[in-house]
């Protein structure tokens, strides 16, 4: 017996079809329920709310449609590895460019070939990058593409699979890192523990908190809160605040478990 819908459409259809039709609405309902979670999370992250909640040192990449697309492709589980790497590299480049904006600069006027004066600006030299092994290394090329000869240090942080406790097992920096601006690269933050350990190491090497810029792609609100609370003077740059972090990033980028 037909319980709903227009009689004309149901009349001609076989039993199998009606069954599948009945299943479909329930599937979309499920989808809608699942969607609820991310949607509210995204809505909560307007720039004003972020400023109020995390302070001025957490910055999120201007979310235009193009960036949204990159995020979407990276998160899509059906994306091929080649596409994944391609679009991840694009996003990394954007994040790095934006991170470099946080560096200090001075005004600088130059003469153009037409003889006119251009009021420009100049960045101070003496910056360096530090990547957290392994996924942070994915961002090194993006940094190299922007600053050709920048020095890059590395930190290896191991986290216990059960306790999520992180500890630094390897660190190698330029000698004078204490006098440099440091661009710390780590793409995924789900708890923030790894970054906390890495920043601690940097501080042990004499880098002031305010000279560290954290470049990050995906950040959970929990991690953001943790890091901001621990190091309020550190600048953080990310492309998205979302409760679910794409933890497969390093795996898929390097295609090794």
């Amino acid at each position, binding site marked *: 017996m037909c319980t709903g819908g227009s009689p004309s459409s149901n009349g001609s259809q076989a039993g199998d079809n009606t069954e599948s039709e009945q299943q479909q609405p329930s599937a979309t309902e499920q989808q809608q329920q*699942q969607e609820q979670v*991310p949607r509210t999370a995204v809505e909560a992250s307007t720039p004003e709310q972020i400023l109020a909640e995390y302070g001025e040192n957490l910055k999120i990449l201007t979310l235009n*449609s*193009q960036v949204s697309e990159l995020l*979407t492709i990276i998160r899509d589980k059906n994306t091929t590895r080649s596409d994944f790497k391609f679009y991840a590299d694009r996003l990394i480049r954007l994040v790095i460019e934006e991170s470099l904006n946080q560096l200090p600069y001075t005004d600088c006027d*130059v*003469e153009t070939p037409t003889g006119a004066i251009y009021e420009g600006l100049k*960045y101070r030299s003496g910056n360096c990058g530090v990547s957290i092994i392994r996924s942070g290394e994915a961002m090194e090329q993006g940094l190299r593409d922007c600053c050709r000869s920048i020095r890059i240090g590395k930190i290896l942080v191991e986290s216990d699979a059960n306790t999520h406790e992180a500890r630094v097992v390897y660190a190698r920096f330029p000698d004078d890192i204490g006098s440099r601006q440091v661009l710390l690269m780590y793409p995924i933050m789900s708890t923030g523990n790894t970054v906390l350990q890495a920043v601690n190491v940097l501080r042990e090497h004499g880098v002031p908190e305010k000279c560290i810029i954290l470049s990050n792609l995906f950040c959970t609100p929990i991690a953001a809160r943790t890091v901001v609370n621990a190091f309020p003077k550190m600048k953080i740059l990310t492309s998205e605040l979302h409760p679910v972090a794409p*933890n497969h990033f390093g795996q898929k980028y390097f295609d090794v478990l």
Partner: protein
Amino acid sequence: MSSITFLCSKTNNNNNNNNINDVSSTKGKGIAASSVFPTAALLTTTTTLQQQQPQQQQQEQAQQQQQQARLGQLHGNLKKLNATTATAKSNCHSHIDDRSDVTEPLYVDPFVELSSGGGGAGSELNCCPASPTTVPAKSSLESPMRRSGRRQRTTSIGNQTTTANPSECIIRSNNRTIYTAGRPPWYNCAGQQVEPFVIGICGGSASGKTTVAEKIIESLDVPWVTLLSMDCFYKILNEKQHEQAIINEYNFDHPDAFDIDLLIDVLTKLKEGRKVEVPVYNFVTHGRESQTKTMYGANVIIFEGILTFHSPEVLKLLDMKIFVDTDPDIRLARRLKRDISQRGRDLKGVLKQYLNMVKPSYANYIAPTMAHADIIVPRGGENKVAIALIVQHVHTQLQLRGFKLRETLANSYKDQPMPDSLHLLHPTPQIKGLHTFIRCKNTSRDEFIFYSKRLIRLVIEYALSLFPFKTTCVETPQGVLYEGKRMESRKICGVSILRAGETMEQAVCDVCKDIRIGKILIQTNLKTGEPELYYLRLPKDIKDYKVILMDATVATGAAAMMAIRVLLDHDVPEENIILASLLMAEIGVHSIAYAFPKVKIVTSALDPEINSKFYVIPGIGNFGDRYFGTEPSDEY
């Protein structure tokens, strides 16, 4: 009879010097002036010739290997048969010489044809066009890709213009080599099209229309001339008509043989400056080839054909109407020669067609249209005075249509608010820092390239975000659904304005996988200061694409406007175009936004003014020169 003999002897005279010796003395004595042919006698001659043929054939094939030589021998036969003294008329001599220069692949041994007779058994001659009308056979008017067997071009420039030399913009005529300039603006400062000048050439079959057209093109000495032949618009024949055509009973000279509606459509579009696909008519199958010929970009259109003045609608489109009036005898003579020697047709068939169809059609449909003509050119291409007059008039008309675009652009739109279509990159310290590097005159090229590439990347990334996106939901490996965005259409192509725009291509390729890149070369004419279009390669179906148009700097916007105009002429919707550039002057933005309000303009910096050389101030200098290292040594 005498005419036939004359024709053959003429051919012979060109090609086979030692066979006949009395012909060379016949120059200068006109006999073709007698108007009416003794029809019956002609036909008799033909029949006699055919009967004699089989006996002669073996002997001749043994003697003569070359086809031209055979034709000469034919002449000898004819002479023996008819015992007629041949005389020639000198004033059509040069024409025939011209024609015989052409290496037509269709050349067929006249003997084979003659022996097979006019009885419709010409099936082995299928490759021969049965059209009575002129096919431009002159090499300079043929498309280069056809001549040299190059790939089919996707754009039209150079195919049908006078620049139809394999090496693009070069005309060779009278031992001169002219490097033609690019195409000056064909639109006004509001971006609106200025109509091209359309010349219609009408005249009977083999009256020399093509020669006149060629001479006009040669003397005009302007590029961007399109020659459109009415032959392209023959109707597709059905099977019955096809058979009629084979036995020379289909009337190709009747107005009904042409697809006038299509013709009007094409000509109207051409006159509007739009890109058109012109059908290519196949005279063997009497159908249209699947491949069409793309025509675009003409300041002068020459439209020639036997019935160009027939349709009143077509007449309205013509700015200048020329009628080529050539003596009917000369026309028949040329026609016979052309059809027999170049198209491999037989004498009987050609005459039958001429008498039954070509001649009556001329009297009924072509000759009366002479009344519409502005100029009647007697003697066709010979008439140098007439052609000089025509060329002078066209030049005057073109000058009236042209104007100083760049100057007009440079002096308008002062102190106006910036238009909505301008999308300026957020001026972050990083962008300003990059600008500092590339603007500084002391920056080395290595650094200049590196930093401009970084800046270009940012511009392109930003430009992409302006395309329409749709919301989509994807599954993630973490098991949750993620609501994001995807671009509505993946069909994006880049078009760079050479040379400086080319520097941005790499960034587009880095950002969009497998993107197609079109190119437009626009250079400023140093004398006039106007931009000129030189070269154009665009994806064939560019109208379906979103287009990122790239130019490194935009000063007055004249070049960018020309490029946008080109895209619009290729049916790209205005709203699908994004103009991306590193640096723009405010007036350039105003000009473009005023002319093309739906085109999105993306730039990383906006400078207030331009100097008298149309460089942006403070600007970057000549971006292309600095990037490619071609600065003139004394410039700075």
